[in-house]
């Protein structure tokens, strides 16, 4: 609307008097949860009351402290091998965090490079790379990951490779779209007039301007990666026991879900909280960054 357009120009000079970032619930709650995740991951040995992999068969299947038969010795109860659930959830954060960070780093990098190159250079390269991307998007990620796990044998790196193999495709699609839009921008034309090389245009002009949607996508992907890792572990193709992984823990508890519900429940909650946090934070970031994007 023309009227509002007139005002955006003036408001830029005003100091923002909106509610400070700290108090916005869509930001603070996810950040707190994700910070907790990071703290758990880094300081697990200090935080966990017990060793997560040592069996203690005399303490098997103890319920959480608030249920009948439980005690504060094992806050969240124990599993079928007598291992403390709380400690395993804390240590499980390590797996979730490290897998998701690595996968996002790998997939975002590959996807962004493919996307920018494809979008800017265009022509046959674009066609070829986009067909590869389409194929990657068409394949069901879980099945491919399972296949990889079977071929390579379950391990930490298998999980990372398996999820990354197809995980770069959404980034490529998104970044290519953004690149196509930016390619028409006046400042890119200006760079060409000056004589800037395509490589420099891609790096200096295109890349900084795709960072915003990239961050949004990456944040949203945190949840997806953790879920995928959990699914792989649940299906037995993930990180092998006795390492504590949330997905594995959920799988462990599935046969006794009616009697020892806490074995699956608490790691399940952990997964849910982290996934939701990632999504909410991604939404918040996208909203925050969007108005400035409109200046283009």
């Amino acid at each position, binding site marked *: 609307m023309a009227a509002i357009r007139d005002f955006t*120009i003036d408001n*830029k000079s005003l100091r923002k008097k909106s509610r400070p970032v700290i108090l916005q619930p869509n930001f603070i709650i996810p950040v707190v949860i994700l910070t907790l995740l990071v703290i758990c991951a880094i300081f697990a040995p200090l935080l966990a009351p017990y060793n997560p992999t040592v069996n203690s068969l005399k303490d098997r299947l103890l319920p959480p402290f608030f249920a009948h038969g439980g005690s504060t010795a094992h806050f969240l109860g124990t599993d079928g091998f007598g291992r403390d659930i709380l400690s395993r959830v804390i240590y499980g954060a390590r797996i979730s965090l490290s897998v998701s960070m690595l996968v996002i780093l790998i997939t975002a990098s590959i996807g962004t490079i493919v996307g920018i190159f494809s979008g800017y250079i265009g022509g046959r390269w674009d066609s070829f790379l986009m067909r590869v991307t389409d194929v990657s998007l068409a394949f069901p990620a879980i099945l491919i990951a399972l296949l990889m796990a079977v071929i390579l044998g379950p391990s930490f790196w298998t999980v990372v490779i398996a999820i990354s193999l197809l995980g770069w495709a959404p980034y490529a699609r998104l970044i290519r779209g953004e690149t196509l839009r930016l390619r028409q*921008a*006046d*400042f890119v*034309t*200006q*760079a*060409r*007039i*000056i*004589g*800037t*090389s395509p490589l*420099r245009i891609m790096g*200096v*002009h295109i890349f*900084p*301007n795709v960072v915003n949607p990239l961050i949004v996508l990456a944040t949203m992907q945190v949840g997806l990666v953790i879920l995928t890792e959990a699914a792989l572990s649940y299906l037995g193709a993930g990180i092998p026991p006795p390492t504590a992984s949330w997905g594995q823990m959920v799988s462990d508890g599935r046969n006794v879900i009616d009697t020892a519900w806490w074995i699956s429940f608490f790691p399940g909650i952990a997964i849910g909280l982290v996934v939701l946090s990632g999504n909410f934070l991604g939404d918040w970031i996208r909203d925050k960054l969007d108005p*400035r994007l409109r*200046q*283009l």
Partner: protein
Amino acid sequence: MADILLEGRDLVKHYPVTKGLLQRIVGWVRAVDGVSFTIERGKTMSLVGESGAGKTTTARAVLLQETLTSGSIIFEGTDITKWSMAQLKTGYRPRVQAVQQNPWSSMNPRMRIRDVIAEPLVVNTKQTKQQNRERVLELLDQVGIARENINRYPHEFSGGQRQRIAVARALALKPSLVVLDEPVSALDVSIRAQIMNLLKDLQVKHNLSYLVIAHNLATVRYMSHAVAIMYLGQIVEYGETEELFKNPLHPYTKALISASMLTLPEDEDQELKQIILTGEMPSPLNPPLGCRFHTRCSEAGNTCAEEVPELHTVGTQHWVKCHHYD
């Protein structure tokens, strides 16, 4: 003898129109169809026309952003259309720079203006960071932006200020020719004069040549030494500014002037009557036969529909392409 910096000779740009799965060529958009002009050193030449006339395409060709279908660009006596990419990069590009129409999108929003202005230097020279910084400060002074703003981002400036920064960037490499595509039409009315005056001052100071693309005749009259009126891919009238405006010859020129003239209600009976053209500019896919303007011309005769008019000289520094001057 005029010192000619750049000459466009019979520039032609046709875009193919394809159809179907196999991309068969079914027609040609004749965006620029035989355009010739000269730009003198230190002077301003304006290309005027309405949308679809081909002026932006011509400007883009001069900036090497379009490959010409045929024709040559003679820069300081040499035909640069025969040059290699490497020769163009060192010998032509740094000498011919541009200022674009839209000050809100012509700058990378993620770059500080010191980097925006220094970009041409970084790309084309091997100067040190310190040397670049000094040049940037010097340029900021020249365009009237306070030095302490050097680290700000483009969105922190107003439209007029951003256009000044664009001018600073265009001057970084000390070009001989600056192509200005509607340099003031996106700006507020009271800011336009500031920018136009700035451009004129810089022209005198650095002996710059300008190629201005504009649709506003009043701006053109204020800024230019020579004017070319374009219609449907061709130049229909061309000449020294004052001569052309005092004595317009082509019917299209007369219509344009009438449309742009500030006529008050009681001035109806001035020499230049209200000339209202009928219809709209035909598509460059299918230009009319004969004189391209004849479909809208109130003075069209029989030859106009059949024969293409030649470019005739009328007086000094004044050419027109119209059968009425045969």
